[in-house]
């Protein structure tokens, strides 16, 4: 059973003006689709790996055959990261989190604004391609991290609660070299309901 590209949960223009229509088309239909295709190609001769979810694959990198390990890492990572990315955004999003997650952010970072600033800083500092994350680490506390390329926090035993894609393909058509501007604008399309749900899941997952 081959992996399927998860459909975008809203229209291509739904995140305008913060993320432009053409970027969404290319990002989902070309970039994300390529990760799924490359993953399916890599595991086409490995029946035992075909039954694994992408989450399972990025958690078990050490035990996948060495000749396809980098391909799995990059493409299962690319799939799981992007599927989350589309879900944690929505049209007319933004604002601030509520409930348990809001309390945990305040407890860890002091204020929501401090959290946001540290998250953006980590996104600016990621040199080259990668992601910036809010994770639940293996001590069970919230932490801002960043990974290179398509590496998933799941591979380190961290649960990704939310993450922003800082590959240039995520913002180049609209923001060009201005990654900080993109990172700031992104908070306007955040789907806190979905992120709250992921936070609740992280509490039961570890």
């Amino acid at each position, binding site marked *: 059973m081959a992996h399927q590209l998860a459909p975008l949960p809203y229209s291509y223009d739904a995140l305008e003006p913060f993320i432009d229509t053409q970027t969404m088309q*290319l990002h989902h239909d*070309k*970039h994300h689709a*390529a990760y799924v295709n490359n993953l399916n190609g890599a595991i086409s001769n490995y029946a035992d790996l075909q039954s694994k979810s992408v989450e399972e694959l990025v958690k078990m990198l050490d035990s996948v055959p060495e000749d396809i390990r*980098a391909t799995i890492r*990059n493409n299962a990572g690319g799939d799981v990261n992007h599927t989350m990315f589309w879900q944690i955004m929505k049209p007319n999003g933004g604002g601030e989190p509520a409930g348990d997650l809001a309390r945990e952010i305040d407890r860890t970072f002091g204020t929501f604004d401090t959290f946001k600033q540290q998250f953006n800083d980590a996104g600016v500092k990621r*040199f*080259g*391609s*990668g992601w910036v994350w809010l994770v639940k680490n293996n001590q069970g506390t919230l932490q801002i991290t960043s990974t*290179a*390329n*398509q590496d998933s926090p799941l591979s380190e035993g961290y649960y990704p609660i939310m993450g922003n894609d800082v*590959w*240039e*393909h995520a913002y*180049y*058509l609209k923001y*060009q*070299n201005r990654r900080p501007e993109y990172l700031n604008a992104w908070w306007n399309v955040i789907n806190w309901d979905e992120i709250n749900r992921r936070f609740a899941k992280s509490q039961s997952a570890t």
Partner: protein
Amino acid sequence: MAVTQPPLPFAKDALEPYGMKAETFDYHYGKHHAAYVTNLNNLIKDTELDSKPLEEIITSSFKDSSKVGVFNNAAQVWNHSFFWNCLKAGGGGAPTGELAERITKDFGSYDKFREEFKAAAATQFGSGWAWLVDDGGTLKVVKTPNAENPLAHGQKALLTLDVWEHAYYIDFKNARPSFIDNFLDKLVNWDFVAHNLAA
């Protein structure tokens, strides 16, 4: 003695008939390359590196965990200055002369070299560079992530292609293979490569 950004060796619209818009150079030369120069100068200001040649800043900071920012910015300054010289309106195709002989000797044929270079550029996952290098007398194709370059690895750089997404997103969007083909068929400045080989 700050590091400086050399001028672009052609008009920013010179490559428009060959697949690369002036807008690409407005950003790539005017913003990305310029930012690496500014960042580097800020990082080395009032340090002993300030008076060192760029090449020495690169080799001395490579793999030094306290100088990651210096290495990244210094190498990116050098890589981009080198890259602009690798581009020429109406270049590309197979080289001639001694360079052609060396490529045939070490790769089998120009087509084999082309295939290897294209594969390296296409498979550098994430941001990075593809290179033709002289490695102790043998020509080789290598790829490097992010800012890494042949200098850091003790090889002589002969030719490079920037495969960070910013290098091709305005002109080719996600289609990196088209950008690579366009470079190899219409842009490679073989005179510069021959000059590097002879140097």
